[in-house]
């Protein structure tokens, strides 16, 4: 099946970030979004551990281990950086000062519920800042493969895994499509031209609503 690779999903998500937006990117796949700011736009990236306006990773051997992001990876400074402590950092998050948070997901439900922190009672649970971000940022988007590696739906009627937050996600970027969540429904906005709506519906665990035109999801080779 033709589908976007993770970098391409990240590219698409990056196109929706406005100039001057304050953005938090979850650990892992969402971090790729930072690479694709459209020309002429400058987003300011926030990391939970107390930096605004940090830059890319340094080259190997140039790391400063006091200058890391929430994923504990080394970053660099950009002009206009600010440092602050964790309470101020989460005042930014919880207080609604971030324009968008882009997170990964295990499951997203059609009512906007998100599960992305725990795969169940086995193992060691870890939550980090995800529960704060989902109830803080003005807009919470998810980027994810459309289905799991073993073919199960990640977009579901109700989450079966422990929730990160209730009714918090408003846009989902997947390997096949772009959907908004409106009135507790998945509303299809864009899809790959190579897949039909019926085929997409078969890979989705809740009803896809179509309101107006569905655009082609067009992404460059990145």
């Amino acid at each position, binding site marked *: 099946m033709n589908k976007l690779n993770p970098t391409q999903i990240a590219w698409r998500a990056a196109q929706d970030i406005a100039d001057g937006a304050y953005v938090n990117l979850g650990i892992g796949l969402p971090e790729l979004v930072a690479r694709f700011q459209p020309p002429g736009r400058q987003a300011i990236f926030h990391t939970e551990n107390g930096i605004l306006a940090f830059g890319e990773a340094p080259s190997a051997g140039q790391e400063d281990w006091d200058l890391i992001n929430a994923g504990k990876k080394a970053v660099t400074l*950009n002009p206009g950086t600010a440092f602050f402590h964790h309470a101020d950092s989460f*005042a930014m998050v919880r207080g609604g*000062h971030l324009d968008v948070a882009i997170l990964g997901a295990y499951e997203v439900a059609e009512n906007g519920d998100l599960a992305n922190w725990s795969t169940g009672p086995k193992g060691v649970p870890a939550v980090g800042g995800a529960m704060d971000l989902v109830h803080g940022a003005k807009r919470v988007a998810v980027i994810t493969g459309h289905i799991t590696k073993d073919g199960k739906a990640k977009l579901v009627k109700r989450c079966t895994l422990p929730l990160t937050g209730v009714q918090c996600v408003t846009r989902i970027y997947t390997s096949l499509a772009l959907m908004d969540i409106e009135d507790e429904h998945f509303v299809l906005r864009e899809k790959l031209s190579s897949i039909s709506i019926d085929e997409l519906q078969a890979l989705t665990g809740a009803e896809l609503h179509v309101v107006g035109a569905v655009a082609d999801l067009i992404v460059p080779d990145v």
Partner: protein
Amino acid sequence: MDKTIASLREAVSGIEDGMTVMIGGFGGSGAPIELIHALIDRFVQTGHPTNLTVVNNNAGNGHVGLAALIEQGMVSKLICSFPRSADPRVFTDLYLAGKIELELVPQGTLAERIRAGGAGIPAFYTPTGYGTDLAKGKPVEEFEGRPYIRERWLKADFALVKAHLGDTFGNLTFNKAARNFNPLMCMAAQTTIAQVSGIVRPGDIDPETVVTPGIFVQGLVEVAEPAQEEALNRANAVYPEFVQ
């Protein structure tokens, strides 16, 4: 991205009738006199904005700055901790005449309520005020054997603050004790406008010394040599100046 606003007039143009406006400063220290005067200028010319709720530690002094804003009749309610000053007549007269509402809040509670507004904390418990007239009507709860009262967050449509330097991202520094309520108000308003003595480029402020990160600031206007309320009052200044 450049948050610079060209003029004081433009900087205060979004403030509408009935809005809640936080105004930084503790007495005259850190008070954004020029932003307040720009708001008065607009009122004198257009009759707006009026019916404002103002949050400040005090209630103005003399006939400039916040006192002048109150004297114009633009303020219908004041939320503050200490409505006294060397010359509090403007507020006192209106208050005793029943023409301005006062919500008196202990100073630490005022600061914490503003911070809570900026930090997404809708309510918190504090020992401050328990058992006093200022706790009337507020929920009481005991934690570890000690009584506390519950206080609510405080948010605003606009914050007008005075900072020292600001870069075009909105990162701010403050001058000495002029910091006071200013960084908190930056956090708690939908739109924060800072008057700064100088606007510099991103990178010109050491990231370790940023007090208010730019995410809390929506607009910056340069006032290279700001007036000090105390100096104006010692000169018996009145704003707007009387024009014949």
